[in-house]
C-alpha cells in the first residue's frame, strides 16, 4: 500500500509542473495591463512605468516564469499587486474560512444526501421517494444567491437569530453552510438513489434476500456498502468543486474566503494571487483524487497492483 501511495505522489510532480506553466501562461494572456490597474485611474504614465518596474513586469516572460517557479518551490508566491502583502499571507488568511465552510457543508450535505437517497431508493415509488426527490430537484435548481438573501432576511433581519455575514462563531456558519451544501445534498441524494437502485437489482442482493437475510441487513450491509463506491467519487469531486466554487455564497454572506479573493484578483489582474490560487486549487484536486483512489484501493486490493 505504501509503495502505491509513494508511486502516486511522485506521479503528481510533473502534473503540478505542467499546471504551473499553464497557469502562468493563461494569467499572462489575460488582456489588460496590471501596472495600469494597480497604478489607478489618475496615475500618470510615469507612475505606471514606476509600478511596472517595481513589480518586475517589464522583464521578459520566461524570466518572470523562472522567477515565479524558483520562488514557488521555496514557498514564496510573491507579493500581491493589489495589497502589496505576501501572497502566502493573503491566501493563508482566507484558506481556513473556506476550508471549514466547505467541510461543514460537505458533512451535512453528505449525511443528508445519503439518508434521503437511501430512503428514496428503499421506498421507491412511494411518498418518501417523491418527497425526497422533490427536495433534491429544488435543491439543485435553487439559485444559491437568492436562497442566501432569503435566509438573511428571515433569520437575521426579521428574527435576529443569526448574523448576516462574516466569519467567527458557529452562528456564522449556519446559513452559508446550509446554502452551500444544499446543491451537494441534492446531487448526493439523487446519486445515492440511483446507485442504490442499481445495486439492489444485482444477483447477490436477490440471493441474500432469498436466503432470508433480514431486510435491514440487506439494505445497510449488502447494498449500501457497494453503492458507496461510486458515491465516494462523487464526494471527492464535489468537495473539490466546493473548495474553489463557493464564490457566490462567499459574496452573499461576506465570507472572507478564497472564492472572493479569486474574483477580486482576476478583476484586478493580481497575477501573483491568481497564479497561487489556481495552483492551490489544482493541487487540492489532485490530492482529493489521490485520497479517493486510496479509498478505492483500500476497498478493493486489486486496484493497487494494476
Amino acid at each position, binding site marked *: 500500500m505504501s509503495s502505491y501511495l509513494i508511486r502516486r505522489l511522485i506521479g503528481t510532480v510533473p502534473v503540478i509542473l505542467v499546471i504551473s506553466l499553464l497557469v502562468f501562461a493563461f494569467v499572462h494572456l*489575460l*488582456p*489588460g*495591463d496590471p501596472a*495600469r*490597474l*494597480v*497604478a*489607478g*485611474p*489618475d*496615475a*500618470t*504614465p*510615469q*507612475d*505606471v512605468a*514606476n*509600478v511596472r*518596474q*517595481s513589480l518586475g513586469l517589464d522583464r521578459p516572460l520566461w524570466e518572470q516564469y523562472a522567477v515565479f517557479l524558483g520562488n514557488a518551490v521555496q514557498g514564496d508566491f510573491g507579493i500581491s499587486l*493589489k*495589497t*502589496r*502583502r505576501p501572497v502566502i499571507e493573503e491566501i493563508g*488568511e*482566507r484558506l481556513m*474560512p473556506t476550508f471549514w465552510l466547505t467541510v461543514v457543508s460537505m458533512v451535512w450535505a453528505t449525511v443528508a444526501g445519503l439518508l434521503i437517497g437511501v430512503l428514496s431508493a428503499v421506498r421507491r415509488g412511494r411518498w418518501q421517494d417523491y418527497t425526497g426527490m422533490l427536495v433534491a430537484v429544488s435543491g439543485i435548481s435553487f439559485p444559491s444567491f437568492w436562497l*442566501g*438573501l432569503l435566509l*438573511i*432576511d428571515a433569520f*437575521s*433581519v426579521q428574527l*435576529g437569530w443569526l*448574523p*448576516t*455575514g*462574516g466569519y467567527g462563531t458557529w452562528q456564522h456558519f449556519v446559513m452559508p453552510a446550509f446554502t452551500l451544501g444544499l446543491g451537494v445534498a441534492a446531487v448526493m441524494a439523487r446519486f445515492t438513489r440511483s446507485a442504490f437502485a442499481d445495486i439492489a437489482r444485482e444477483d447477490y442482493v436477490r440471493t441474500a434476500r432469498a436466503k432470508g437475510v433480514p431486510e435491514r441487513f440487506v439494505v445497510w450491509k449488502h447494498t449500501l456498502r457497494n453503492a458507496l463506491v461510486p458515491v465516494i467519487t462523487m464526494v471527492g469531486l464535489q468537495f473539490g468543486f466546493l473548495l474553489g466554487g463557493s464564490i457566490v455564497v462567499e*459574496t*452573499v*454572506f*461576506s465570507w*472572507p474566503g478564497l472564492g*472572493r*479573493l479569486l474574483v*477580486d484578483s482576476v*478583476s*484586478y*489582474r493580481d497575477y501573483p494571487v491568481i497564479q497561487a490560487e489556481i495552483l492551490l486549487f489544482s493541487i487540492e484536486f489532485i490530492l482529493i483524487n489521490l485520497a479517493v483512489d486510496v479509498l478505492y484501493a483500500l476497498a478493493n486490493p486489486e486496484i493497487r497492483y494494476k
Partner: protein
Amino acid sequence: MAFKELMTACALAALAAMPATASARTLVVGVQDNLTGLDPTNINDTLSQTSLRTVYQGLFGFDRDMKLVPLLAERFEASDDATEYTFHLRRGVKFHDGTDFDAEAVKVNIERLANPENRLSRRSLVSMVDRVEVVDPATVKVVLKEPFGAFPNNLAHPGAMMISPAAIAKHGKDIGRNPVGTGAFKFKRWAADTFEVVRNEDYWKPDLPKVDGVTIRSVPENGSRVAMLQAGEAQFITPLPPEMVTVAERNADLEVVKRPSIVGWYVAMNTLKKPFDDVRVRRALNYAVNKQAYCKVVENGFCDPLDSPLPSLLRFHQAQEPYAFDLAKAKALLAEAGYPNGFETEMFGKNNTTAMRAMQFLQQQFAQVGVKVAVTPLEAGVEAQRIWSVAKPEDATVKMQFAGWSSSTGDADWALRPLLASTSFPPAMFNVAYYRNEAVDKAIQSAIGTADADKRAGFYAEAQKLIWQDAPWVFLGTNQLLTAQSKNLSGVYMLPDRGFSLEEAAFTN
C-alpha cells in the same frame, strides 16, 4: 447633613444626566470593496484613502462641500508666480507613536513621496516640488520647479497625508501595514476584509472622537449590506444602491441620506474620427439625449444633469447654457453635417450593471435621431488595453466611451487637464475624445501657472465655455451619493468625492 444631601442629589443628577450624553461604542461601517493597502502615498482607490483618513491627516483637507480646509497646516502663503509656498503648521500635534508633528516631519514626507526611487504611486501629487526647507519647527517652505497654482489642493489629497517619520524609519517598506498618523483613531488591525481602528485618546481636536473605535467591513453584495444595517450589525453603509432606497426608507430605525457628488458622467466622442470630427454631429448628440430621463433611468432619479464639463461642486465651476432635449434640432444638425439618416457607431464602457443600463439608455436615445450604436461593455483589463494602452491617436479604435470622473483634488485642474487637454491623449492620460483646442490648452495651462484664485477662475471660465461649445462629450449628469445609517448615529457624512468622514461620529443612545 445638608452637605451630604447635596452630594447625594448631585450624584443622582449626574447619574440621571449620564444616559443623555453620547454613549461610546464602536461604529461599524459596511462598504462594497476591500481596502487595497494602508500606505496612503501608494494607494489609488477612494475607499482605502477615505478609510485611512481616520488614522492619517494631511496639511489640508476637505469639508463636506469639497472646499479646502486647513488641518495640520493652519495657513499658507504663496508667491505670486505659484512657485513658492510657505506653510505655517499647527503646534502641539503628536503622531500616534508619541513623536512630534513638525516641519521636519513635513519635509520627510514630501521628499519621500517626491523621490522617484521610492516608486510611490501618488508621486504625481508632489512631483513638481524642487526642494523643501525647514524654516523653524512650525514653518516649512516648499519650492516648486514650475508654477502650480493648485498645490495646496494637491496636499489636501489623501495621497499626501503625513506619516510619522519615526514609523517610516522603523517599518520601512512595511509602513503600508503599520499606519501611524495624527488622526482621531489609531490603527488596530487589518485582515482579509476588515479594517479596525480605536480611539486616539490624545487627539488634538477637543472632545473628539466620540466613539470607541471604527470597524470598516467589506460586504460586496448590495442586499447583504442593507440587511447588515437592518439587523443592527452596522450603523452606516455606503453605497446604498438606488433600488434599495425604498426598502431602507420603510424602516423606522434607518435614515437614507442623499448627497451631491463631484462624479461627472459623460460620453467621450473620438473627435479625430468621422463623424465625430464634425462639431455639428457632437452637438446634435447632446441635443438628442434627454438628461432628465437619463437621471431617472440610470440613477433612479438620484442625479443632476451636467451644466458644464465641471461638476457644480468643483472649485471654479461655471454653469453653461444647457443643451436642451430637442430631437428636431438634433436631426437638423445631423442633416446639415451630411448625415440626414444618421450613422452607425460603437460605444465602449464598463461592464457593471449601471454602466450597461446607461449605455442601453443612450442607445435608445440616439436611435431616435437615426444614430445606431452598438454597445460594447468592456471588462476592466480589456478596457485598459483597448482604450488606455493605445500608443498613437490614429490607432485608437474607440469611437464613443461612456465614462465617469471624479476630481480627487476637488480642483478644476484635475477635472479638466487629464480629460480634455491635448497633452492628455492616451496613454499619457485620459483624453479619450482626443480633443484638441489650443485656446483650451492655453487656459488650462495658464490656470495652473498662478496661485491667484481670481485669475484662475477667469481661465477656467474660458475653458469651460469653449469645451461646452466644442462638445467633445455628450454631457450627462452627476449622480448623488446614497447612504443609509441608523437614526441614532450622527456626525457621519459623505464627501462629494465618494469618500466619507467618520471623525465626528457619535451615538445618541
